[in-house]
């Protein structure tokens, strides 16, 4: 009798085990940029995410991660997303760096009932009327860092700004965000091409503009090319930008040309909190380089995902969404919560590019620019 019940329960456990494991695990599709001028951003996104999974031990193993390179091309990103949703049957998508790719993928993915957690791109079109219960931005809303830079420009006494960004959704959000807080005069507003690597014409316009500061948003390889060429041009007009333009993926390639530049960020390697110390030290130990903003966002995204997985089953979409919304994880940003449109409410700082004792260029916080900043679109979101 005893033996029989043991056997029965044993068989039951065996039969149930795979079902349970399947219910607990989450299949994540990461679409990110791993080649070309934007590769630095995608590599850091991937590495930050992987580090968080590794640090989580057993819980991290419940995440099955599929990573694909979108080559910074919207059509490729759409193909990958289709494949991940239809043949890999992922539960959740993440990882897109560029807002034009996010606009191509996210609306279709959430319409197919997949969760999307953004590690970076958060275009305004998805924050207001286009918000969606399945879409969470863990990074920011696109305008945020640029708003902080605009506020800083006032404070620093700049009154004639030359502003410049690539012509794609995040670039437009960038200049909109800057102008929302900046009170001085905009002497010229310039949109460059995405992927542009020669800025001779723009630099000539900057020099002739009579501006007292240049606000520029040029992430990845574009920023590297611009800062290097600007340093060669002999122009003395100071550069300011969002953290993307002076991020850790850009700094080693531009060298001392970036030293002293002021830029905004919702994260910085020197931010004082336990989670961040562990993250920066762990990242440096694992990959032999300092993490960038993108790595920090991806690290937070993975930890948010793990926190929700501990509370709810992803197949119960409502419970899982509620668990995500609690944002109950140790963020490297010190504090983090979601607003009504599922975009972060967080502090944004001004940072300065400095040289560490070992010669590495990095950023340090000099001031808090905006406190508990949500975004300009939350009110338009009806969920």
């Amino acid at each position: 009798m005893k033996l029989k019940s043991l056997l029965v329960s044993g068989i039951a456990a065996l039969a149930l085990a795979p079902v349970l494991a399947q219910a607990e695990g989450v299949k994540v599709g990461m679409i990110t940029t791993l080649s070309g001028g934007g590769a630095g951003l995608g590599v850091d996104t991937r590495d930050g995410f992987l580090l968080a999974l590794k640090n989580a031990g057993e819980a991290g193993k419940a995440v099955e991660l599929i990573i694909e390179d979108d080559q910074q091309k919207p059509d490729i990103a759409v193909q990958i997303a289709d494949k991940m949703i239809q043949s890999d049957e992922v539960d959740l998508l993440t990882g897109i760096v560029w807002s034009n790719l996010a606009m191509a993928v996210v609306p279709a993915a959430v319409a197919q009932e997949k969760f999307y957690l953004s590690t970076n791109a958060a275009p305004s079109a998805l924050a207001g009327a286009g918000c969606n219960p399945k879409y969470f931005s863990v990074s920011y809303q696109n305008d945020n860092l640029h708003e902080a830079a605009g506020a800083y420009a006032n404070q620093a006494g700049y009154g004639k700004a030359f502003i410049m960004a690539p012509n794609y959704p995040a670039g437009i959000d960038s200049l909109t965000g800057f102008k929302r807080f900046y009170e001085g005069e905009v002497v010229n507003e310039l949109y460059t091409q995405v992927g542009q690597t020669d800025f001779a014409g723009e630099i000539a316009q900057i020099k002739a503009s009579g501006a007292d500061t240049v606000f520029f948003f040029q992430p990845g390889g574009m920023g590297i090319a611009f800062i290097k060429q600007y340093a060669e041009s002999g122009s003395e007009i100071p550069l300011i930008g969002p953290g993307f333009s002076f991020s850790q993926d850009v700094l080693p390639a531009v060298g001392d040309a970036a030293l002293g530049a002021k830029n905004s960020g919702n994260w910085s390697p020197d931010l004082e909190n336990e989670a961040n110390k562990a993250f920066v030290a762990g990242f440096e130990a694992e990959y032999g380089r300092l993490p960038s903003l993108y790595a920090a966002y991806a690290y937070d995204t993975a930890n948010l995902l793990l926190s929700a997985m501990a509370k709810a089953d992803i197949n119960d979409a409502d419970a899982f969404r509620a668990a995500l919304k609690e944002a109950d994880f140790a963020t490297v940003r010190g504090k983090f919560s979601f607003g009504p449109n599922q975009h972060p409410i967080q502090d944004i700082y001004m940072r300065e590019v400095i040289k560490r004792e070992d010669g590495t260029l990095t950023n340090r916080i000099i001031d808090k620019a905006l406190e508990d900043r949500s975004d300009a679109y939350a009110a338009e979101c009806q969920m």
Partner: protein
Amino acid sequence: MLLAEQILNGLQYGMMLFLMAAGLTLVFGVMGLINLAHGALYMLGAFACAFVAGMSGSYLMGLAASLALAAGIGALVEITVLRRLYARDHLDQVLATFALILVFSEGCRWVFGNFPLYLTLPPWASGAVTLPGGLQYPLFRLLIILVGTLVALALYLLITRTRLGTRIRAGEADREMTAALGIDIAKLYTLVFALGAGLAGLAGALVGTIQSVQVGMGEPVLILAFVVIVIGGIGSVKGALAGALLVGMTDTLGKAFLPGLLAGFMPQASANTMGAGLASMLIYILMALVLVIRPQGLFGAKA
């Protein structure tokens, strides 16, 4: 001052295009070969420069390596692959040289990875110089203009004043007759191709230095180089120079001044978008105009 600087920018861009287009036009004109892999040779030159300059610490060594490697690989490719294609029609050539792009791109990806490489300018070439009139201009861009001018001069002398140049012109005019006169046409073709490849490699190295060195950097430039040789006239080095400068100037000045011109009669924001869009179309409009007025190109010999 702004105009002067933008003219210099246009000149520099034009010279870079000329280095690309000179080889392409020679290969197309003399050998009758459409070489899509010209952009891959440009990329190879850039990688060679980045690699050798990084290893040896000498930028000039890097430049020399870019010339040598691109020319060497060019010669090798001509002997092993392209030689079989002269008799075939253009479609076969396009297919084979497109395959070469894929081979070289994947090869570079395999060796150097997906990450762009960035070159540091040597101290003697970095910084800005003050030109007469007080304009500050990056020294390295002036050097590119200088290199382009020297190459143009050297090519002109080579083609009009030397025996090799005579043979190249003869080969262009009539391949069979030239061969019948006892000139080794195969060797001549290899030489012409290597020369074009070397120039493309040099252009890649120079541009890679101020921008970035990455897989796929050659293809956008290749398209422009084709525009240049169509405008200038296929097979004419003089045409390539004129076409390159025309395209460089049109593109740079259009991007710089069109938004301002349009802002005269429409709001600034839409003038900027319109201007940028129109500016990127300008060179193709230019090409269409040239084709309407002179279908053989500005300096083209044959209709």
